[in-house]
């Protein structure tokens, strides 16, 4: 066991996989010699050589296309897109090619690629360094989408993602690279070292995709969250004193539907939290599913607490970010709603 922040845990997962799988390799903008703008690949080129970890041209579409071709050859590429905002030029490659290659070729070819990319706000990145694009991937049949909320999960999930023979979008909540963030920017930052999930085994372990984690058991209301918002949800529960059951989904596709529905059937109430803008976000699918699966158990309207339906504005970081106050209000409304 070592104490790791999320970047170190991701770095460790990559290290483990480069070591275990001779066909694994990493490329992306600035990931080679320099080790990535967030340092996720720090030291890997030095340790394994440029062949295993190298810089790519600024061409997100080219990066994904190259990875698909390498995957079809039999390698196991792990690529970094520097910011999730910049994955859009590769969207066609992900949707029309990576997601469909196995299906359309009836299993002749497939794309065992992992696409790591930092996403989300809370860092004053403005509209081009803050977006949460998960919903444009979760709607796409053939892609898996994973979002960790702790160093421990980040490593285990990333290893599982790399081992997948299907394309996986691995979204990293960059606001919590260095420490958990409860949505209170005015308070001093806590490092991961003060959080139990910074205890990370140094070697290999995998957390299977499709298993959610009940991070706080409770009876009053179910909170569905992922990434940074898990910590915000926990803060809101603590601050309101509401006995919320907080579920960290970890993997959006495949979704652990059983854990979700079991919890909502128990609590009868559900609040969904994400940072992405609301309309058509992943929360909409969660809400629809919960409603379909748990209609007769629901005692209050399902609530969504999300980013607004605007781009992420630089100066209004904390007005946009769905912090604990907003989540707390929704929890209260939800538990107080009459049947």
């Amino acid at each position, binding site marked *: 066991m070592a104490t790791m922040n999320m970047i170190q845990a991701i770095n460790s997962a990559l290290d483990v996989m480069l070591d275990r799988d001779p066909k694994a*390799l990493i490329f992306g903008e600035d990931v080679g010699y320099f080790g990535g703008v967030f340092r996720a690949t720090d030291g890997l080129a030095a340790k394994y050589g440029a*062949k295993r970890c190298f810089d*790519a*041209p600024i*061409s997100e*579409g*080219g990066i*994904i*296309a*190259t*990875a*698909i*071709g*390498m*995957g*079809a*050859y*039999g*390698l196991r*590429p792990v690529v970094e897109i520097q910011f999730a905002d910049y994955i859009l*030029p590769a969207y*066609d*490659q992900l949707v*029309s*090619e990576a997601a*469909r*290659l*196995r*299906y*359309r*070729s*009836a*299993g*002749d*070819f*497939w794309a065992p690629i992992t696409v790591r990319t930092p996403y989300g706000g809370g860092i004053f990145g403005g509209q081009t360094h803050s977006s949460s694009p998960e919903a444009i991937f979760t709607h796409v*049949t*053939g892609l*898996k989408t994973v979002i960790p909320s702790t160093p421990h999960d980040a490593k285990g999930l990333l290893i599982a993602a790399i081992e*997948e*023979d*299907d394309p996986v979008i691995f979204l990293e909540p960059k606001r919590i690279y260095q420490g958990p963030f409860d949505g209170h920017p005015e308070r001093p930052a806590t490092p991961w070292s003060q959080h139990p999930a910074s205890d990370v085994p140094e070697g290999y372990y995998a957390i299977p995709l*499709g298993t959610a984690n009940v991070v706080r058991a409770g009876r009053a209301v179910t909170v569905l969250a992922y990434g940074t918002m898990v910590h915000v949800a926990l803060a809101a529960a603590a601050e309101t004193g509401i006995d919320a059951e907080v579920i960290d989904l970890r993997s959006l*596709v*495949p979704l652990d*539907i059983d854990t979700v529905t079991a919890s909502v059937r128990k609590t009868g109430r559900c609040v969904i939290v994400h940072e992405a803008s609301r309309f058509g976000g992943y929360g909409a699918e969660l809400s629809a599913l919960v409603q379909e699966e748990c209609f007769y158990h629901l005692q209050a309207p399902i609530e969504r607490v999300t980013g607004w339906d605007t781009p992420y504005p630089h100066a209004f970081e904390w007005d946009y970010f769905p912090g604990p106050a907003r989540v707390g209000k929704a929890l209260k409304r939800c538990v107080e709603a009459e049947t």
Partner: protein
Amino acid sequence: MLRNSRLSLHIPEPPARPGDRPDFRHLDLRPAGETRRPEPETPAHEMRDMPYALVRVLDEDGQAQGPWARGLPPETLRKGLEAMLLTRAFDDRIFRIHRQGKTSFFMRSTGEEALAVAPSLVLEPGDMCFPTYRNVGFLMARDYPLLDLVNQIFSNARDPLKGRQMPVLYSARDYGFYSVSGNLGSRVGHAVGWAMASAWSGDDRIALAYIGEGTTAEGAVHEALTFASVYHAPAILAISNNQWAISSFQGVAGGEETTFAARALAYGLPGLRVDGNDFLAVHAAVSWAAERARSNLGATLIEFVTLRIAGHSTSDDPTRYRPDDEARAFPLGDPVERLKGHMIALGIWTPEDHEALVAACEERIRAAVKQGESIGTLGVTKPPVGTMFEDVFKTPDWRQIRQRREVEG
């Protein structure tokens, strides 16, 4: 001082429209044999003239001319001719079958057979072709089972792609033929990645990717070329300049301003402009590029100048936008006729041999189609309905499992 006070927008127009006389003067042709053949190990920057030249071997009399004439063995010529004839017979037959409503769609490669067939004979078994919908000749040259093609086109119970793809969008890994998709240009990057993976692995396999001249405008093509250049990918990128992209003439893709082979110069790659209807020139150019690739000298871009003789697809009506006698007027002729003429000139072929081969090809196609029909045409048979939920992922998740259950009832 040149400056005008008012600008105007240039909108490209083809030299001829329906009713006009076909006009191919823009092609800038050269006699066979005239273009130099640099040694394959020549540095790219010493070959910057090549994209503006034209590699041709066969002259008007069926004689092989100049430095690109490499003296192919008669078996190769025969095999090439047969694959081209098979392709043409297949195209004609399925086109008619489509008219009968037996499938939903079809695309022919009439006039462009050489540029798919000759490279198929150059590439080795471990190599990989990343084709377009117009490259079935590549499979014909490799004896891909005709029945599998037919079953794919009928999406019937024995369709190797399980009824999932429109006709023509084949995939045949064992024959070195990557999954085709409707999307233009989005697999050139896969070819480059695949080739990079071969080099990365210390293997000696190379990749060949095709696109149409219209498709060169896609950003994905530039990205692929950039990666090919930066990492010296052992790949050949072939542009079939068949003069048309559905109804748009090649000028709409930039062909009024320079050659498509000149795209190579942007990346410091060698670029060849090749007579695409000249089986020998195609073979020689691809062999040259393959030798560079296998020698770790990286990628080559090749423009094949050719003509799309047929309509774009069964959904197209080319009489609406182009003169109907372009095929006759096309100065590079017909690849089948030209190879045939060459073989006759060589004395290894006769008109009677040719007729017999045409008949044999047609018969093989007829038989395969008949067999496919007996398995089922579109909608008559198909794979079990539950299979439509397979291969979305390696292992279905609860959604596919539940939905399959719902469909299977």
